[in-house]
């Protein structure tokens, strides 16, 4: 028995007609519906992609970037060093500006003892 069927001709013709149909173009309405669906379920973009600069970046920007930060650090270290071990020139300068009676005497042990003796008496 062969598989030849008189209805096969009709079927082949129907398939040919179906394939030959001009493809339907999506209507504006369908496109709008599809895009609305997409917008409804699309994940939000990652924050870092479009986010604002962070706090550190904004501080750096405000003070003028790395060069300014380097200068600031050097000045800080120098200030601390001057406070810990003042060079002779600084002492001379303060003596000239403020006179000979400087705080060094105020904090000397003998003066404190004398002051204590005076207050007792």
């Amino acid at each position: 028995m062969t598989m030849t069927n008189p209805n096969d001709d009709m079927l082949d013709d129907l398939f040919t007609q179906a394939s030959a149909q001009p493809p339907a173009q999506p209507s504006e309405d369908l496109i709008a519906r599809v895009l609305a669906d997409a917008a409804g379920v699309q994940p939000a973009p990652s924050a870092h992609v479009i986010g604002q600069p962070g706090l550190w970046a904004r501080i750096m920007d405000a003070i003028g970037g790395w060069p300014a930060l380097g200068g600031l650090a050097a000045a800080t270290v120098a200030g601390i060093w001057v406070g810990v071990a003042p060079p002779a020139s600084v002492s001379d300068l303060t003596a000239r500006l403020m006179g000979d009676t400087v705080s060094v005497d105020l904090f000397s042990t003998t003066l404190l003892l004398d002051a204590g003796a005076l207050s007792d008496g």
Partner: protein
Amino acid sequence: MTTSPDPFAGASDAAVLVAFANGDGQAARVLTARLLPRVLAQATRLLANPAEAEDVAQDAMMRLWKVAPEWRQDEAQISTWLYRVVANLCTDRLRKRRSVALDQVAEPLDGSPSVAAQMQTQARMRALSDAMAALPERQAQAVSLRHLEGLSNPEIAQIMDISVRSVESLTARGKRALAEVMAGRKAELGYDDDEPE
């Protein structure tokens, strides 16, 4: 800087889908322009009903949007995946038709011969679609992918995730069953006096 209608020109569909999943604002429009026409055409050929085909096309695209975050680029081609989704959605629709009486075939009335021929073509397409509804779903999918979409058996095997031999078997049995279903409608579809060449 030049403006391009497709900001993803040259990028694969999968790459654009990844961009969509990352929140790109252009990706959905690009993918819709690339994929929706083919999705709609497949649904229209199998369902022969524009409104139903549009619903299926929208549903298939929605499934694509939802699967985007988990899409693995090496897993499957989007076109293959969409063929499968549309075929499944269409056979779901066809199954629901089984409980409904077959549509009356519109008789070509007066009017120009081209209009009459167009109406007859529509009637035939609808009859073919209704006959597809009578087939088991896998047969209907295989037959539609082979004879309506014109895909090769290896392509269909990949879409349906079966062997090529199974595709051959499904299409052969499906076509035979389809011919039997259609036999009773030969006269009303104009095949008695309008023999195909």
